[in-house]
């Protein structure tokens, strides 16, 4: 898990960028925000990927009912409590209100309204159809206009293409870690840090850390983690490792779902002369694993999990891989289809555990017991 020093470093990083005149654009993290446009505008995207605790959830409940997702409540709580290590939140200039889920809308709106942060709207269609893509394009255009208004000058197509290439390289590089012979918690930490720093992380850290061996992970009880992301500060992955398990693959947004969204270089080269909005729209179209869209999310999800397991077996020679479906309490996207996901995977003879939890300390014991019992089955 990241330490206090990381937060201090991150604060310094943002502060320096801000001193260069860059604006900090924050948002409740999701995978359909066109961060390439934020980057092309010369601004810094700040993904709010911080987990919560009892105090933060309680504070969030001053604004939304307690039956709101724990992540959303905690994110509001962060702005209300402002714990010292999160003082970089004071550097935020704008906040994106988006509709990854309805709790995203409501909590982002509250953060803007009650903590005086100017808002930028960016809404995403729910159905991935031709018309949905056309609508996504309109949102992109509006979003660019807003960014241009903030920066006081236009954003060139060339700058957008450059940012698209930059983020493409970034995602591709980071995505390599999925087959590294390192523990799940180390992978997660790299993913989380990469999401916060963006492409800059490639300059700051060495990602060539694969030792080529597979002994460590072979001796563990390996699981794929799917469902809700594990956010920064959450010790769920440590609980799994304490039970002698290892998260071999993070099939979550903070993980492979985001970093696997890469474009082929050839294709990208061919598009360079075209409208960059076409490329961004194409990226949205290809993002079929996002939990935002309907009506085929669960079908795609199951297909992907099966393919991950087959790949892991083939590449690493590991059998007996379990699936942990992580559901943050009151999550609209992951909670409703949990039984369908479990039934369908179990029908294919996979071990599946649905764990639904919030960020309260009290739930840790029970969580630990359930995970240990599940790992024993593998």
């Amino acid at each position, binding site marked *: 898990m990241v330490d206090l020093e990381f937060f201090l470093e991150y604060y310094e990083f943002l502060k320096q960028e801000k001193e260069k005149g860059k604006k900090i654009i924050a948002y409740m993290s999701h995978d359909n925000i066109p961060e390439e446009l934020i980057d092309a505008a010369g601004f810094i995207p700040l993904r709010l990927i911080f987990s919560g605790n009892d105090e933060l959830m309680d504070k969030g409940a001053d604004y939304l*009912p307690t039956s709101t997702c724990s992540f959303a409540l905690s994110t509001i709580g962060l702005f209300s409590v402002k714990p010292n290590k999160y003082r970089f939140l004071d550097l935020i200039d704008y906040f994106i209100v988006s509709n990854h889920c309805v709790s995203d809308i409501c909590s982002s709106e509250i953060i803007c309204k009650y903590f005086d942060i100017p808002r930028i709207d960016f809404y995403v269609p729910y*159905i991935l159809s031709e*018309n949905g893509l056309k609508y996504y394009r309109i949102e992109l255009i509006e979003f660019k206009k807003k960014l241009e208004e903030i920066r006081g000058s236009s954003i060139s197509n060339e700058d957008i293409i450059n940012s698209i290439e930059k983020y493409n390289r970034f995602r591709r590089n980071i995505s390599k870690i999925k087959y590294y012979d390192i523990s799940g918690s180390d992978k997660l930490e790299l993913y989380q840090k990469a999401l916060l720093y963006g492409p800059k992380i490639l300059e700051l850290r060495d990602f060539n850390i694969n030792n080529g061996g597979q002994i460590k992970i072979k001796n563990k009880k390996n699981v794929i983690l799917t469902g809700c992301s594990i956010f920064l500060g959450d010790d769920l992955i440590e609980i799994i490792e304490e039970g002698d398990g290892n998260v071999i693959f993070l099939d979550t947004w903070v993980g492979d779902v985001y970093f696997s969204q890469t474009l082929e270089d050839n294709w990208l080269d061919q598009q360079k002369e075209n409208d960059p909005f076409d490329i961004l729209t194409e990226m949205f179209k290809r993002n079929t694993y996002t939990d935002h869209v309907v009506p085929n999310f669960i079908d795609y999800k199951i297909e992907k999990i099966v393919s991950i397991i087959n790949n892991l077996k083939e590449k690493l020679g590991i059998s007996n891989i379990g699936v942990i479906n992580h559901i943050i309490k009151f999550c609209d996207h992951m909670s409703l289809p949990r039984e369908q996901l479990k039934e369908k995977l179990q029908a294919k003879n996979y071990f599946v555990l649905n764990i639904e939890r919030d960020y309260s300390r009290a739930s840790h014991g029970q969580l630990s017991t359930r995970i240990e019992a599940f790992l024993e089955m593998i």
Partner: protein
Amino acid sequence: MSLMTDDVINFTSMLRMSYDFLHSGRKFNIKSNRKGKKLISVVFPFSDLVFAAKTIPIFPIRLEKFKVNTYLEALNSASGLFGWKAVSNFLGFIRKFDFLKVFDGIIDDVINSLNYKYNKMYDLGIEEGVSNDFCYGIKALYGMHSSRHNNLDANLNVIIRCSAFNKYYESLKRFSDNLIWLDIPPRNIGNALEICTENVKETISQLEKLTGNSITDNDLRKQFRISNECRELYREIIYEISNSDFYPCNPATFSEILALLSISFQDFNSNAETYLKNFRNLVKEMKERIRKKIGMDVSNRPRILLTPRFGGWEPESHNLIYKMGGRLLYADWEILGALENIDVYAYSDPIEAYAKFLMDITTKGVGCDNTALTDSYIRVARKMDVDGLIFIEVFGCHSISNCYTMLRQKVRNELEIPTTALTFNKIGENIEQVKTRLGAFMEMFN
């Protein structure tokens, strides 16, 4: 004794609507009763396209068998011979002699049986794997589909801003391969209206394919005219009749009528023309009763708006408010923008008109965020000139009923009327608590 029976027994239109609501859906479980038409489940007031496809929309709870029907069915049989009005007059006459106490419970039974069934569907939804953490509406709807999916030919899924609801739509794939989707862009920017129009066209094509019927502009206009008139009548009840000092019945009955209208408005009891006829009669009867001073002077009773109701609420609330000296009003569809008329001018494109109607609901009524949604609550409360507002915080609702903090502030600043929030999980679960909270709230009017 029921609070309402005395009022309703002479209310032909009310009896007829209640009967249609409870009975006319169930018959569609038998395929031959559909006369070759397809049965399409709908939720929220989005049944127009299904009617235009000359087929049957149904809010799926209406496929259930309700407990009460013995008396109402007897009434219906009698009405077949003598007409509803004659039956109603006869009932009114014999009630004077107190012969048939059995009728005391008719409307109570209608409501109780509906609530009982809602709770059964809720339990079934949980049994079928819906997490307890979802709202009452989703759990109950999932239960309804689980119970009757074999009898449905398709489901019309209209995308709304609630992500849980959109995922609920997806979950219906478990029961049906025929999910007909209608996507509404979240904001009216750029050429979003054009996109929405394309989406409506796509939905129409799917309905045509399913039913084998073509949907012409005239079919659409005809249906929109019917539903527009229903909307106008509905608004007349909300803004004019509910605002008068004399009610055609006691205020609890009036609330009951508003609740029944709200539920039945989703599928027009599967027959738009009959529904309109009953609606016209209802408004006419209400006005006549007011004119003849049949009913109740309510001038000294504060008018309380309760919202949102459609995601689940405690139906006992209006009886409690009545006993505490107030009158409770429901107006969800107006708040959410679903009672706006659809343009039916001869030269306008009806598909685009319907798209505009849907986009207005999304952007102005429900709103793409809580700022817009709370503005809608305020707009209607102001227009209705209510004296107080009760907000229902449905457990597990992350969309429509989670904005009380924002709403309370706006009510205080802009309306300056008393307001309170009631939490709701399941019908009948917390009546004592509701009673206590409503009691404290009503104290503010004494």
